[in-house]
């Protein structure tokens, strides 16, 4: 079988991948050397894609009210419930909540159905959570949501400012390109602006570890500094912008010292950054969730963009403000109009736009105006105003702020439909109707990445079970509603052509988003479509946006937006920050299945500064509870000197499927940006306290288990799962509770030391170990994790099963904490290689292969090398 090129479904970098097919299966995934985003590179998540396929945990059949039903019955039920809610309560009582994981074609038909034929603007998407502040800022500044940069600019610039971005972990391939560019051009400077010292600081010439939420002061101060030092591009400002004076007024007299005071930075550091920015023409400011997920995210984005407009550093190679998106098709969703305040194809609810789109679609019931944004949408559901909600490809019970509110909303809404590829998610638990959606590799369509490149995602294997692509489900519902003639597509190619045609419809250069050149693709051309960057008008040259100084406002001028910087409201306790880990994706529904992706960071943990930990009496690995008025999370304390004092970092990936109380959103109040509606997901106040733990446990099991305990956290391991657990009850009590759930039909062997608080049990079915449970008062007394991880393939001789209860095997030596996920190289191995003389990332790579594939562990390898040097010197 030939290889097949497609696109990675994870982050917004949108890397091309080559799937190796063998025997009707995807046997491996490599970077596509011809794709402009990655040119063959791939991160560890992408490399492990083949391991996320298969039927483990998959939703394979429609399920109505807990019972498997036929597709016909499912579509009929959906149609009648939708119709009923709409007729009885009006179009505003129905809503779709979509996702940046959907393909453009899926997005397009869902958006068209709701906004053109059901009369409601209530289509929003989880992209609201990750980049809507960038959309709002782009529209305020440029008149249209246009990203003016490409990855090549990030390479070509002489100064790269990374604002609220830990690209080393969240956009690893872009980070690798930066790293390579810096190696090739040692004069290239990198400034990282982040309240945490992250892996991305590894490359930084300057890390500005500012107070959370104070970025706008830094950039307002920079604008003032540029003005005061004659660094403004007056010609560009006069010809192509408006609003500078008001923006400078708003910035006031912020100088480096004033900025230092409010941001908590050293004035000299601020001055250095300002000097570098002032002096460097080719500057790219790459900004991401760190500034967008804020109550003032739109202003922060504009504060960054302002500095580029005021210096004319936009629309030319190697410069510009560059918003990097989180999801694989957040951009495609924006192009389609999948946000509730958009209509379609970069047109909003301007009456002329509504009329134009209605004519194009032949709409029978156009939405009259914008619908509800995500947080408001779920608030409305909680208040009883939304009666029918269809959620596609996203897990709002975990990802939206104020999880308690979201759960109330899902519980109250009369009919909740969830289309997903995963059977058990925190959101699916609330569904009245579950629809099996075809995931990556089983469906066909297009996605757009952060640099406006449209790429094909191609079907590699047949859909499992009864799974169907989302576009097909939506059009079948449209047919059930009597709208078949408007949704009569033979396949995604027909939808894409219509989408392209709409982008060009009565455009004439008025909208940057124009892919009219693709409206005439025949099926074969669509099938073979190579990655292309928009704009792609049907006629005339395809020019990079803003290279001619023309913007998409009514007067063609960009706006320098007056930004009044605001610090977050003060509050009690620690400041909570949230974010991603290197090897996980979103709520782990796919990456959580891959053993090697759970080794870099394993059990749900909360990071804090070692001095704060000492003050709280916390040691590494102790159980902590973080709580506020919204809710609580419980995790293991990770002591990280990269976290500033008074702050704490909670990773976003953990749902109720993987840990007891882990959703970072439990702590996040539903505070949103006034322009974008994007929630302030990276900022909350909460108290943090040690949890008294009477029992610790490690459980290897063949099946995933959800337990009623103060803490448990599960990872996939070879042949099963490994769960770390802790509780306030004594081991005997925890054992009694777990013994009921474990081991039906198992032959058991157990060990108990009730006075010592030491309980162990193994259960086997025939020659196969089914589970192994170790409980102890002390975590240190539990078996080594590496030993537990190998239990999936453990088959003792018949008389030796009880020896497993020793929780120990002299033969196996642990590789230590996994550093390189690609080649599965652990700390112990690396330490040994360093002892044996490896003294650089390259020599380590030569010896162990670590860091030689995706490269995302290189910062850690450097750290280990530095540590070893310090230890040597000490």
């Amino acid at each position, binding site marked *: 079988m030939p290889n097949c090129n497609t696109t990675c479904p994870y982050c917004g970098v949108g890397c091309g991948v080559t799937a190796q097919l063998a025997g009707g299966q995807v046997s491996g995934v490599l970077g596509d050397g011809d794709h402009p985003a990655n040119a063959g590179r791939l991160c560890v998540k992408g490399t492990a894609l083949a391991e996320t396929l298969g039927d483990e945990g998959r939703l394979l059949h429609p399920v109505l009210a807990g019972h498997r039903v036929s597709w016909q019955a499912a579509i009929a039920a959906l149609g009648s419930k939708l119709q009923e809610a709409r007729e009885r309560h009006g179009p505003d009582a129905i809503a779709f909540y979509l996702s940046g994981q959907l393909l453009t074609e899926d997005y397009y038909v869902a958006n068209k159905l709701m906004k053109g034929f059901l009369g409601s603007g209530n289509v929003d998407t989880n992209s609201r959570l990750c980049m809507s502040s960038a959309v709002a800022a782009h529209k305020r500044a440029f008149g249209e949501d246009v990203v003016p940069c490409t990855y090549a600019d990030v390479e070509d610039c002489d100064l790269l400012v990374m604002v609220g971005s830990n690209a080393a972990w969240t956009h690893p391939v872009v980070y690798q390109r930066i790293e390579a560019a810096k190696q090739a051009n040692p004069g290239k400077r990198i400034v990282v602006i982040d309240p945490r010292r992250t892996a991305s600081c590894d490359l930084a010439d300057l890390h500005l570890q500012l107070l959370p939420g104070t970025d706008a002061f830094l950039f307002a101060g920079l604008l003032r500094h540029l003005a005061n030092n004659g660094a403004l591009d007056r010609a560009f400002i006069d010809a192509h912008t408006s609003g500078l004076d008001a923006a400078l007024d708003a910035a006031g007299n912020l100088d480096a010292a004033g900025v230092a005071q409010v941001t908590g930075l050293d004035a000299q550091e601020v001055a250095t950054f300002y000097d570098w920015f002032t002096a460097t023409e080719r500057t790219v400011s790459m900004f991401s969730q760190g500034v967008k997920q804020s109550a003032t995210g739109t202003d922060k984005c504009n504060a960054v963009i302002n500095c580029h407009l005021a210096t004319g550093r936009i629309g030319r190679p190697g410069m510009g403000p560059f918003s990097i998106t989180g999801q694989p098709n957040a951009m495609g969703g924006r192009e389609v109009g999948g946000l509730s305040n958009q209509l379609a194809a970069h047109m909003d609810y301007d009456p002329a736009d509504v009329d134009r789109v209605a004519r194009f679609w032949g709409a029978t019931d156009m939405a009259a105006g914008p619908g509800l944004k995500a947080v408001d949408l779920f608030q409305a559901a909680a208040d009883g105003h939304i009666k029918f909600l269809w959620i596609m490809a996203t897990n709002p019970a975990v990802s939206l702020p104020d999880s308690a509110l979201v759960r109330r909303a899902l519980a109250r809404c009369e009919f909740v439909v969830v289309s997903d590829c995963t059977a058990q998610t925190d959101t699916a638990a609330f569904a009245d109707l579950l629809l099996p959606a075809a995931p990556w590799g089983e469906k066909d369509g297009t996605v757009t990445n952060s640099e406006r490149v449209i790429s094909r995602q191609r079907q590699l294997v047949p859909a499992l079970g009864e799974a169907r692509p989302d576009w097909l489900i939506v059009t079948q519902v449209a047919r059930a509603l009597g709208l078949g003639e408007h949704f009569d597509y033979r396949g995604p190619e027909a939808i894409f052509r219509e989408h392209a045609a709409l982008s060009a419809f009565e455009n004439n250069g008025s909208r940057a988003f124009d892919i009219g050149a693709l409206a005439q693709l025949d099926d074969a051309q669509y099938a073979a479509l190579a990655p292309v960057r928009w704009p792609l008008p049907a006629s005339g040259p395809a020019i990079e946006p803003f290279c001619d100084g023309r913007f998409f406002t009514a007067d063609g001028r960009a706006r320098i937006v007056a930004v009044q910087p605001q610090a977050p409201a003060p509050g009690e306790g620690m400041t909570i920050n949230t974010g991603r880990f290197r090897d996980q994706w979103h709520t782990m529904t796919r990456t959580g299945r891959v053993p090697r992706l759970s080794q870099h960071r394993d059990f749900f943990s909360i990071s804090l500064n070692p001095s704060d930990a000492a003050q709280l009496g916390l040691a590494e690995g102790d159980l902590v509870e973080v709580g506020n008025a919204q809710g609580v999370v419980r995790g293991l304390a990770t002591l990280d000197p990269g976290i500033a004092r008074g702050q704490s970092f909670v990773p976003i990936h953990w749902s109720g499927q993987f840990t007891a109380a882990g959703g970072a959103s439990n702590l996040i109040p539903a505070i949103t940006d006034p322009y974008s509606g994007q929630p302030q997901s990276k900022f909350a106040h909460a108290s943090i306290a040690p949890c008294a733990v009477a029992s610790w446990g490690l459980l290897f099991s063949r099946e995933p288990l959800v337990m009623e305990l103060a803490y448990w956290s599960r990872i996939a391991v070879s042949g099963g799962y490994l769960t770390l657990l802790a509780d306030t009850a004594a081991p005997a009590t925890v054992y009694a509770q777990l013994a009921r759930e474990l081991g039906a039909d198992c032959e058991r*062997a157990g060990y108990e030391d009730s*006075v*010592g608080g030491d309980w162990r049990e193994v259960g086997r079915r025939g020659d196969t170990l089914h589970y192994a449970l170790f409980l102890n008062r002390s975590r240190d007394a539990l078996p080594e994790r590496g030993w537990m991880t190998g239990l999936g393939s453990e088959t003792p001789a018949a*008389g030796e099963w009880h020896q497993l209860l020793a929780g*120990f095997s002299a033969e196996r030596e642990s590789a230590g904490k996994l550093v390189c996920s690609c080649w599965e190289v652990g700390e112990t191995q690396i330490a040994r290689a360093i002892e044996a003389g490896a003294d650089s990332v390259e020599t380590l790579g030569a010896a162990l292969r670590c860091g030689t594939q995706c490269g995302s562990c290189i910062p850690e390898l450097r750290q280990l090398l530095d540590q070893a040097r310090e230890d040597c010197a000490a």
Partner: protein
Amino acid sequence: MRRKLVIVGAGMAAAYVLQELAQLEHDLDVTVIGDETEACYNRVLLSNVLAGENSEADLAMLEPAMLEPAMPETDSPETDSPGTVQFVTGTRVSAIDTDARTARCADGSEHPFDALVFATGAGVARPGVDCSGIIGVEVFRTLRDARELRALPARGRRALVVGAGLLGLEAAHGLNELGFDTRVLHRNPVIMNRQLDTEGGAQLQRDLEARGIHFDLGVQIAGVAADDNGRLCGVTLDNGERLPADLLLFATGITPNIELAAQAGIATARGIRVDERLRTSAPGVYALGECSQFGEHCFGLVAPIREQAAVLAAQLAGVQHPPFCLQDYPTQLKISGVEIYRAGELDDAAEQLVLRGNGVYRRLVLRDNRLVGAVLVGDKRGGTWYSELISGGGEIGALRAGLIFGRDVSEALAAA
């Protein structure tokens, strides 16, 4: 001038004394007198012979040459030459005159002695029910018993063993292997209750049941029934139940053979009283093994008897040796392939470490951070180490986490 030593009884105790003497310089010419035809065989393995798992040749405890008929009696002038050993088998000593220092045998022969050792062993305790003269009521104590039992037709016939101690279970295993439909009756609800605890007994019982042996526990025999030909046909239990049987074997404990000593005016209680040098109340007369009683203690297992033999041999040879003292002798057995080990005290009120499952039961008892008892069924690895820990009395400390898995695991975990 060489001295004459007479050992009365040619069982395992006698064999151990001979083994020990062979290691020492002495001036003793030894005469061993036994009433069985075979002398000094390993009685512990008899049940294996019954089961067909060992041959009779496997029972030998002494060099074959040692057992050959005695050389013509010649007084050897040199006292440093090795002493002779003469076996007189198939006859019983009928009387001992401690003043005249002679032992008279049933066959009329007389054996003068300078020193005499009682190694008369023990007999099967007499059942509390009248079954005299009934054909099919057997005992299992000697090689001859084993031969006779092996000669019986077994298939389709029902054997009842009374007593689920070591001897009863071993006999039951043997009979079961021979093809008898075998059932064990026991007064206590727990088998081997002297050595094991309730759970250990239950584990062993499960193992034996898996091999086809049946159990009736917490019952006693009330009566034995025979047919008109005087042949056994069944028993009645104290709960009224009747069990048919073709063979009835009593293994309800042992009784020390003390009559001969008592007749000779030597102090006896349950057994022949000995001191820490194995001396009886008569000068130059000693006793060891199952027939002896030290303080309140009688003996049934091999380990203390070996220790007695060492003390006694030294005493006889005039060599320095620490006196005999009671130790906690661990019980190490193998019943029907199931390993059993027991040491120390099984104090239910102390701290317990328990491993169960996979056909294994292991329990360690700790008090004040010290190991005081151990019972192991199905896997007795680490037993010797536990004995050392129990008698050494050292603190367990970090060894605790892996203690029940034996020395290697325990020490490795403690070091980690």
